[in-house]
């Protein structure tokens, strides 16, 4: 192969090669993959837990620092740039992008599972219900949004203010200088693509599992691995068609529809469900969350077992980090023209309130059904079949078939929009941050991410999905920590430009 051509496309070729190796490994040596992922899983509990906990808490502190720092008035983009979107639709889009499939998947399953097997204390009690809601808030609250704040802000700042390419390595310009175009920068890009592919594959895997369960609940189609794979194949074909026919404009309408439908479903449940309990849960759990924030953020249980922490907290942190380049790119794209203070309020504070409210509505109503009625069997049933959880929950509410159909539509739409946007982001990242990724590369990533999701599902479903993202996200977590320092350096130089401008105006 032509050496120059290879150099130009090295990020794409190497990251594709790495991912292909993984797919071949998973498809032909499935047992070996399961064995290795289990070893990684156990290793992550013993050796890596503190890395994830420490860095994620650091991101929260860093984001809050930015909110109050002198950099707050720096605008992303030109000094007089106007935001592309109104504040309302901006917040809605952030919320949809950050949580997407996951929030529908886990909103009932997580609180109920915690309720049956809480991190500490006895299950099936009132205390367990409180703890369950508290940890759900914790996993979906400030921490994930702080990760997105850091990466979204870094991407937006270096893209709009420093006019660098839209790739992760651009965020290291203040530290590395022109080396971002060399091997170091490319390594950063390859690692970020690798993490992103797994983050997306995890979401697509969860989505496919839930779509299959939804079809089982609504249409009675069997809930099996085969159908899950069919869902992935159909999804892949659909978005490949959309890439090739310019139907991508339609994807935009779809993603808006998903956000509106999510809100509709939330309001509907509030009306037909136990609204007063939901409000109480929201206030009560917010209090618990704030007062136990530090304890939960650093909880490792060194003298007991760490399995619960590994399969929940560490999995979430890893998943958010793996998912971060994708969401960060999206957030950066829609946030041009906002100041840093607006950005942090919009990406850290508002979505956190939004997810907490969402979790109160879904989790609070579900816990009300299982706890107040003493319906322990139902709780077990939900915890055992997580894929079906949301549909099992809808069955207990009035208007259940309407809720099920809207819920199913939301999941299906999120699935297709995430897959479509992901191909675009992966195309940008793997072509050196160009805003015009070619269709061939986008389609390649489309097929690859579906293949990874399929391989992970074949290799063992949810557990393997969780373990794979914990392993793939680790290098990227460390990259993110350095990104914070790079961002600070960049902001410092920007504030000097701001000061300089002011002075020259006064003198002239």
């Amino acid at each position, binding site marked *: 192969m032509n050496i120059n051509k290879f150099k130009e496309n090295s990020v794409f070729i190497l990251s594709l090669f790495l991912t292909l190796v993984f797919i071949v490994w998973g498809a032909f040596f499935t047992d070996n993959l399961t064995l290795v992922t289990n070893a990684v899983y156990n290793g992550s509990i013993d050796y890596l837990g503190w890395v994830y906990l420490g860095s994620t808490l650091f991101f929260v502190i860093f984001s809050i620092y930015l909110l109050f720092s002198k950099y707050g008035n720096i605008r992303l983009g030109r000094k007089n740039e106007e935001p*592309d979107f109104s504040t309302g639709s901006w917040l809605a889009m952030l919320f949809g992008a950050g949580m997407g499939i996951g929030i529908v998947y886990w909103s009932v399953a997580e609180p109920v599972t915690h309720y049956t097997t809480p991190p500490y204390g006895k299950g099936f009690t009132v205390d367990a219900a409180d703890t369950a809601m508290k940890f759900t808030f914790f996993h979906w609250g400030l921490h994930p949004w702080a990760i997105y704040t850091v990466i979204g802000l870094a991407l937006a700042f270096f*893209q*709009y203010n420093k*006019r660098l390419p839209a790739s992760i390595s651009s965020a290291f310009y203040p530290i590395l200088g022109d080396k971002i175009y060399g091997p170091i920068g490319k390594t950063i890009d390859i690692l970020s693509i690798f993490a992103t592919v797994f983050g997306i594959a995890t979401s697509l895997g969860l989505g496919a599992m839930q779509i299959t369960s939804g079809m089982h609940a609504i249409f009675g189609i069997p809930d099996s691995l085969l159908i899950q794979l069919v869902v992935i194949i159909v999804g892949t074909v659909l978005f490949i068609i959309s890439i090739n026919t*310019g139907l*991508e*404009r339609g*994807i*935009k309408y779809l993603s808006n529809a998903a956000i509106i439908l999510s809100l509709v479903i939330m309001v509907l449940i509030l009306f037909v469900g136990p609204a007063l309990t939901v409000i109480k849960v929201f206030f009560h759990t917010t209090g618990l969350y704030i007062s136990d924030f530090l304890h939960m953020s650093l909880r490792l249980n060194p003298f007991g077992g760490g399995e619960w922490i590994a399969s929940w907290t560490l999995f979430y942190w890893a998943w958010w980090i793996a998912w971060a380049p994708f969401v960060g*790119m*999206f957030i950066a*794209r*829609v946030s*041009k023209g906002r100041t840093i203070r607006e950005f942090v309020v919009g990406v850290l504070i508002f979505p956190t309130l939004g997810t907490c409210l969402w979790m109160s509505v879904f989790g609070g109503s579900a816990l009300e059904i299982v706890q107040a009625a003493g319906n322990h069997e139902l709780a077990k049933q939900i915890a055992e079949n997580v894929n079906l959880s949301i549909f099992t929950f809808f069955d207990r509410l009035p208007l259940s078939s309407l809720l099920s159909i809207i819920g199913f539509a939301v999941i299906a739409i999120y699935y297709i*929009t995430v897959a*479509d*946007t992901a191909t*675009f*982001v992966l195309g940008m990242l793997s072509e050196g941050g*160009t*805003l*015009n*990724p*070619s269709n061939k590369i986008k389609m390649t990533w489309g097929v690859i991410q579906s293949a990874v999701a399929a391989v992970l599902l074949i290799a063992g479903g949810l557990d393997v999905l969780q373990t794979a993202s914990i392993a793939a996200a680790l290098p990227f977590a460390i990259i993110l920590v350095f990104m914070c320092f790079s961002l600070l350096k960049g902001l410092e130089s920007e504030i000097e430009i701001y000061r300089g401008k002011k002075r020259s*105006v006064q003198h*002239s």
Partner: protein
Amino acid sequence: MKLFQVRKGQFVYFNNELHKVYGVKPMYKLSIHLIKLRDLSQHITNAASVERYIPREDDSFIFNHKVYTLRNNQKPAAGDLILINNPVPDTLDHYSLNEIETVEKIDSKGVITSDLNGIKHSEYLLMVPGRAPDSHPIDYKDMASVDENLDETETQIIHPYSDLSVQLGDVYKKKDHDVLIEAMVVAIRGHTVFLGGGLEIQHEELMNTDMWEFQYNPFNN
């Protein structure tokens, strides 16, 4: 009855002049918000009184007081304006039909605009300054009823780039002179520019960057 659906971005004729639709508010009697391309003034009307025009290659029109010809086969350069006549936005792009954007970077697949949209080469027409002789003027729907001579309007176009045309208050520095001369534009009459200190020069001379250099304008900030 006219059954025509007006969409945002379309070029339309209204009162015989070329406008662009920048907003449609379906619930109102006067539902069509227009911007006149010639001087960017805003107008409001209803769907029945506009007529659609699809801009194509070799059309020429006045945009913001300057005349441009649409070209398809020419390579853009940084700073050029493009008319996005065939938008196929990617999922994260934010542009729509007939938007006029400034080119910032050019690569093999497309251009990147100053609003950081990635636009493929097949999606836009380049707006080349000036009215090419082979072009088809589209400023008016019915040329015959226009008293104003197009050639005359052309002579009013002093320079294709607005940043380079003279404004009151601009401060210029003379470059081909040993003694420091900095002067402010105090009056403009036709092609003659009056500078502070009694200097009186032709517009072309002031625009010659070897002779005069623009410094700043204290009123534009």
